[in-house]
């Protein structure tokens, strides 16, 4: 019974990681940038979602609005931050991204206050009996929400013109450009979708903790960086598998080796272990 409970907890966290990590892996797959400022967009999503929910009382309205808003900010981030330095060595974009993330955290702290915000009335907190366990509706919503969102995304990527254009650009930017696909448009779309997903992730985590604070993006995003590396960098399927595996490893690890190291350290110990055995990640890259 304990095993099943840990497995379910792992899947809940894993789905949340997946929502954050897919955005990161999209950016990496297209531009080869470790996009640390993704964490800032994740937190912005949490803030927007909470503020809109508190103002209107509707979480269903808040989610798409926050996702669209953060998606637009993500496009601005690409234009101002990454677009001008794409031809520089990778550490340049990495450090610029970290600088941007620090600045974003500080803006949230100055605008929304250091102690964080809470929901007036936290949505989706009723208990549901599931396989003999009591789960919160929010936890189920995270799992199903992630499956639906990522499923839709993968469907769109395969079936629509724009999805095909996007995949072509990821595979071979030059060839795609010579077929008349505008790489800039693809990048904007990429940042819009990735950042929108991060916003949803931010809202999900705020439903579990009923707290949105300036530094909330840090740890989940560092773990998402670990996940995209585990998944083979830029490999979307690998990222999804790695998210779930990491969620489950963390859930079991906290019980069995929690006295040796904390939850975050377990995640990174697992990362290092896997990379030493398979340096290209669990599923190798493209």
């Amino acid at each position, binding site marked *: 019974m304990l095993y099943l409970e840990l497995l379910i907890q792992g899947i809940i966290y894993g789905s949340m990681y997946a929502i954050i990590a897919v955005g990161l892996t999209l950016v*990496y797959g297209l531009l*080869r940038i*470790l996009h640390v400022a993704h964490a800032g967009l994740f937190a912005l999503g949490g803030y927007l979602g909470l503020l809109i929910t508190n103002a209107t009382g509707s979480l269903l309205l808040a989610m798409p609005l926050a996702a669209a808003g953060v998606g637009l900010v993500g496009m601005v981030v690409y234009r101002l*931050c990454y677009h*001008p*330095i794409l031809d*520089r*060595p*990778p*550490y*340049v*974009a*990495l*450090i*610029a991204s*970290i*600088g*941007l*993330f*620090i*600045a*974003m*955290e*500080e*803006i949230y702290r*100055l605008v929304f206050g250091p102690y964080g915000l809470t929901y007036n009335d936290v949505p989706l907190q009723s208990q549901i009996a599931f396989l003999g366990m009591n789960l919160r509706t929010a936890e189920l919503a995270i799992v199903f929400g992630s499956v639906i969102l990522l499923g839709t995304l993968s469907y769109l990527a395969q079936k629509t013109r724009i999805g095909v254009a996007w995949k072509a650009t990821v595979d071979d930017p030059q060839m795609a450009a010579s077929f008349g696909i505008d790489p800039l448009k693809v990048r904007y779309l990429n940042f819009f979708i990735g950042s929108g997903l991060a916003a949803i992730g931010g809202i999900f985590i705020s439903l579990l903790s009923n707290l949105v604070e300036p530094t909330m993006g*840090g740890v989940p995003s*560092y773990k998402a*960086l*670990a996940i995209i*590396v585990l998944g083979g*960098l830029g490999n979307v399927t690998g990222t999804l598998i790695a998210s779930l595996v990491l969620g489950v490893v963390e859930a079991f690890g906290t019980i069995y080796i*929690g*006295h*040796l*190291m*904390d*939850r*975050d*350290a*377990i*995640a*990174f*110990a697992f*990362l*290092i272990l896997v*990379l*030493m055995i398979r*340096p*290209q*990640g669990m599923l190798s890259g493209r």
Partner: protein
Amino acid sequence: MGIYEVSLATIVLINIILALGLNMITGFCGQISLGHAAFYGIGAYCTAILAKAGFPPAVTLLCGLILAGASGVVVGLASLRVREDFLAITTMGVGFLFLGIVRQQEALGGELGISSIPSAGMSKIGFMLFVLVLAALAAAFSLFIKRSWMGFAFDAVADDEDTARVLGLDVAAYKLSAFAMGTAMAGLAGGLYTYFARFIVPDDFGFITSITVLSMVAVGGIGSVFGVMAATVVLTLMPEFFRFISDYKLLVYGALLFTVMRFAPGGLAGFLQTALRIRKARGETG
């Protein structure tokens, strides 16, 4: 010099040793590390425990240096397995692993850290001069390495690892030596910090510290000894200059980091070189 200026000068000098250590790894040898603070922490904790057990500074500092250098070799082994972005995330993981383990150990003081560490037995000014001598030695050592045969080999590894290997360089040995020397310097800096603060907590050695050190190296101009030293002085003192806007100092820090990378990706050294070249070119034509 008042007490305040002496403390400020001491911390600047400690940071110079720390940053020159990372410059050895990232600057000279081209191996990016996002976990430098872990070695700073290993040196600090080792020194703190030995100092509390009654050993004199000469012994404790040396032990801190050796232990950090030895751990550096172990992490250096990872750099033989993984490269570039994979290495960046692996070293980031090492940082979180160190924090996560220290936090759970009663013997290391857990979250509360180690307090009432005995002093180094010098006056504040005496200690500052002691650190000054060590920082000067670290700078001289860096310059010596840079201009030696080993410096050329590091350059080759940083430039193109595979070509270096074809030329018959023992790439693995050079990478390991860079990690050993760089992390040993971080361990020394950590020991000095222990005697300076006489109170250490895990968060002193977190991800933010690693990033701060990396930004010193990047802003200074990767690989330039004098550039890194200048950037360390500026970035360490900057929060003090901006104390009149204390609430915004991190925002300014993040924004500056972003701006430097965005507009002068070669850092201060690169910026100066470009400026000199332009002046020279103007001089020649006009």
